[in-house]
């Protein structure tokens, strides 16, 4: 597995703090995982210019799946749709991001929507809202809303199955 984590560069200094790795400590010595942290370097689409090339390299080097974690602002991040076969939107209840996402029409782009911290209040309701939104905008696609609790390893297997299915399906489409 290859992971590219993108964090925003400071518009003032051009520097960045790349903190995506901190949460993946248990994989630092994992032979099967290659993690690359990148700064957006002025690129506005939520990615960095080099992401596509790096993703390609990782795929060519034998990685079965490459996960690209975008900067995460949501609304302007369409660049990822050009690169990724499967688009996943991760949200948590309580944050305003979820409502914003519903409004901004990101739902139309996402293949899978993940509600993390699903043990929180409002998670159920949020998941239902998104299912409804997906059915509305993607009548031809299979909607998927997965509830997870990453910290407790809940829902991760289900999420993986969803991702895997779609990856396989998209490869078949291409060939």
């Amino acid at each position, binding site marked *: 597995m290859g992971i590219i984590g993108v964090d925003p560069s*400071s518009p003032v200094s*051009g*520097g960045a703090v*790349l903190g995506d*790795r*901190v949460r993946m400590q248990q994989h630092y010595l994992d032979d099967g995982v*290659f993690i690359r*942290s990148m700064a957006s370097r002025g690129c506005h689409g939520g990615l960095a210019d080099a992401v596509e090339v790096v993703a390609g390299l990782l795929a060519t080097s034998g990685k079965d799946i490459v996960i690209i974690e975008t900067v995460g602002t949501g609304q302007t991040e369409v660049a990822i749709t050009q690169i990724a076969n499967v688009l996943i939107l991760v949200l948590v209840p309580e944050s305003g991001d979820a409502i914003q996402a519903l409004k901004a029409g990101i739902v139309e782009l996402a293949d899978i929507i993940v509600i993390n911290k699903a043990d929180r209040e409002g998670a159920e309701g949020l998941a239902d809202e998104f299912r409804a939104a997906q059915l509305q905008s993607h009548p031809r696609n299979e909607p998927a809303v997965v509830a997870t609790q990453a910290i407790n390893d809940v829902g991760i297997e289900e999420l993986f199955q969803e991702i895997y299915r779609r990856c396989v399906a998209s490869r078949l489409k291409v060939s």
Partner: protein
Amino acid sequence: MSERKIRVLIAKPGLDGHDRGVKVLSRGLRDAGMEVIYLGLRLTPEQIAETAVQEDVDVVGLSCLSGAHMTLFPKTVNLSRAKGGKDILFIGGGIVPKKDVPKLREAGVAQVFGPGTPIKEIADFIRENLAEEKRDNKD
């Protein structure tokens, strides 16, 4: 030649949990235009070395306030070199008695920055020493 971005890995090997310095330094180097990969706490030298090579960083900054630096810093340097990170500039910080600094230098830590070092001093040191390495490599 355009300014290539300097990539810095900042990590705390061992059990020491004091992270004020690494957090302040991470922000400070960001504000000095560098890209800082903040790796966190309670890491083994192996984890840091593997990450340094995987992320292809220019600099690795190690912090330790518990007194375990003489064991942990050299080990991290050696492992990084063994994994292929021979051009990495190593710097250290924390609670390090002056008499340990020459030994750490010998072990591959270019400089040790004690408590209260201005961020600019560290940023300047990184720039000067990376430029030097590039010059050396050209020869």
